[in-house]
């Protein structure tokens, strides 16, 4: 009986919303917009965090960088020898890792110079390259984003400026596979000597030393030992980098969420106002319903179902639009806020994930406040005396 009654009330709610379709649509458009913003933010943050985690899975367990006056400077390759006494280190790979700004294209490239054969499983790096061939002297492998931005002309040569503005020409011998996009999209991969030459580093220097540790549970201990043996260096573990990423994205996402929650609050006030401002026709309708036998609880239930239908429809529309925005438009609205400086990179494809917990969180942050905000106006409407229909 009660279930049948609720079905009747839902039926009436739908027809009531349709009769007031312009007002209902107005509320839904604004509400869906707020949900779209919140969900987009959440999905973008989640996608970026996941991508960061994926990239770190391939990062060296420990990276050693030389510091002077609180800033990073080149590190001598000879430092490797001083670490030979630490047990647990499987390999130390010298690496040149830097950024190259292409003024013409307005793009920032990542330059990776290393000798793959000197690192564990380095020979397998060729699998990530379409030609299955590692670069030799004066050769380079490009990420897909660089291929598009740097050599759109179809040339097999790429020329880059050294610090003294002389040109360094390199032959493109392959591209990274699409599956490695997040790691390699903006990357130029070359030999150690070529990278040194490009950045003007002396032959005995690199930017950092990558340490591979046999036992993952010993990473922290090994890092401590390295730090004590090389006091002028910064020893960064993969876990520390991961934490930094999380806090950077978390802070930016949190800051933006606060702004969006302000928008949500404004919307709730707007919803309150809309729900409170009953037109004379709506008041008359409620009085008639009560006169013909509807109870206050029935009118309240009717208003609740109206709110539920409006908020759930808005949620579905807003959430779907957010997914499309992040998946197909790469979160164009929020990239500058969340990714910051790296907006000048070639763009990175984002893969949003939809999981129950995150969806429920957005649902609780939007639908629940809306329903709560409309309870009191609904109650005010529901207690309109039946006899007002007689006047």
């Amino acid at each position, binding site marked *: 009986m009660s279930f*049948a*009654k609720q079905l*009747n009330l839902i039926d009436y709610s739908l*027809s009531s919303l349709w009769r007031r379709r312009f007002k209902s649509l107005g509320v839904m458009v604004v509400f869906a917009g707020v949900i779209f913003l919140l969900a987009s933010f959440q999905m973008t943050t989640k996608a970026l965090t996941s991508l960061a985690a994926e990239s770190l899975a391939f990062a060296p367990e420990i990276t050693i960088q030389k510091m002077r006056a609180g800033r990073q400077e080149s590190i001598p390759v000879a430092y490797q020898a001083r670490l030979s006494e630490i047990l647990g280190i499987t390999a130390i790979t010298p690496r040149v890792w830097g950024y190259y700004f292409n003024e013409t294209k307005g793009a920032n490239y990542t330059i990776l110079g290393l000798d793959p054969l000197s690192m564990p499983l380095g020979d397998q790096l060729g699998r990530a390259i379409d030609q299955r061939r590692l670069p030799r002297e004066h050769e380079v492998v490009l990420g897909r984003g660089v291929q598009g931005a740097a050599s759109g002309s179809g040339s097999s040569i790429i020329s880059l400026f050294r610090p003294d503005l002389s040109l360094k020409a390199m032959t493109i011998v392959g591209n990274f596979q699409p599956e490695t996009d997040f790691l390699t999209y903006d990357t130029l991969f070359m030999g150690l000597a070529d990278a040194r030459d490009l950045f003007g580093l002396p032959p005995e220097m690199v930017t950092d030393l990558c340490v591979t540790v046999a036992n993952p549970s010993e990473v922290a201990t090994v890092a401590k030992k390295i730090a004590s043996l090389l006091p002028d260096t910064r020893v960064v573990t993969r876990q520390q980098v991961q934490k930094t990423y999380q806090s950077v994205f978390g802070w930016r996402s949190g800051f933006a969420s606060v702004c969006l929650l302000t928008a949500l609050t404004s919307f709730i006030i707007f919803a309150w106002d809309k729900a409170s401002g009953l037109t004379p026709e709506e008041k008359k*309708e409620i009085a*008639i*319903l009560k006169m013909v*036998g509807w*109870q206050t609880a029935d009118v309240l239930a009717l208003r609740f179902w109206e709110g539920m239908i409006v908020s759930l429809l808005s949620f579905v529309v807003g959430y779907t639009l957010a997914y499309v925005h992040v998946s197909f438009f790469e979160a164009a609205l929020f990239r500058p806020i969340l990714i910051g400086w790296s907006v000048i990179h070639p763009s990175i494809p984002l893969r949003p994930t939809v999981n129950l917990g995150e969806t429920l969180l957005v649902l609780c942050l939007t639908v629940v406040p809306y329903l709560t905000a409309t309870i009191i106006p609904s109650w005010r409407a529901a207690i309109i005396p039946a006899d007002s229909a*007689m006047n």
Partner: protein
Amino acid sequence: MSTALIELENVCKTYNQGQANQVLALRDITLTIAANSMVCLRGASGSGKSTLLSIIGCVFPPTSGRAAIAGKQLTRMPDRFLTIHRRATIGFIFQHFNVLPELTVLENITLPLMPLGVAPRQRKERAERLMEMLAISHRANFPARQISGGELQRVAIARALINTPPILLADEPTAHLDHPLSLAFMEIMRDLQASGKTIILTSHDRLITEHPAVERIIAIQDGKIYVP
């Protein structure tokens, strides 16, 4: 002899009690109306007849006195139970018809059945019987705003009858109808009385007060029953 369906004893109604704008609308009304009768409450505007109709219609309880409608005491009855009693006992026909203009005739008639959980098919069947009786079946799917005044009133009558209440109340029912439609309305009322309904009308239209079906006229003046 008919049994009393409506019994009022020393009924008073005060609006805004205890406030500066307090209004004493009814004073010491004592009245008995038998089942299956047709009664007309007559009085000038502001005399208190609509307030009396509201108490008989279980819209609100009296401020003091005893009111028993269809065997239930209204005094101090909570609003929730008043509503339940009203929808089981009373059918209202309003002066301005009070149908919802955007709803169809069928939807308007079935409105009282929705909170009772009556399934759509049953709602339709019950409404179709009434529409046939009142000759408005051809308007079933028309929005109420598109039909004539006479048809609107029949919709209001059908809506009042959909719960098969024993008492039918009509507040100034012919105020917005021309002479032929008013006559037709009274014929419907006569048929309904013949089928066992108790009918209470408020009016100062002579067509009603002098209609042969109306068994009794109760004059109200300044919130009291007036005996000339």
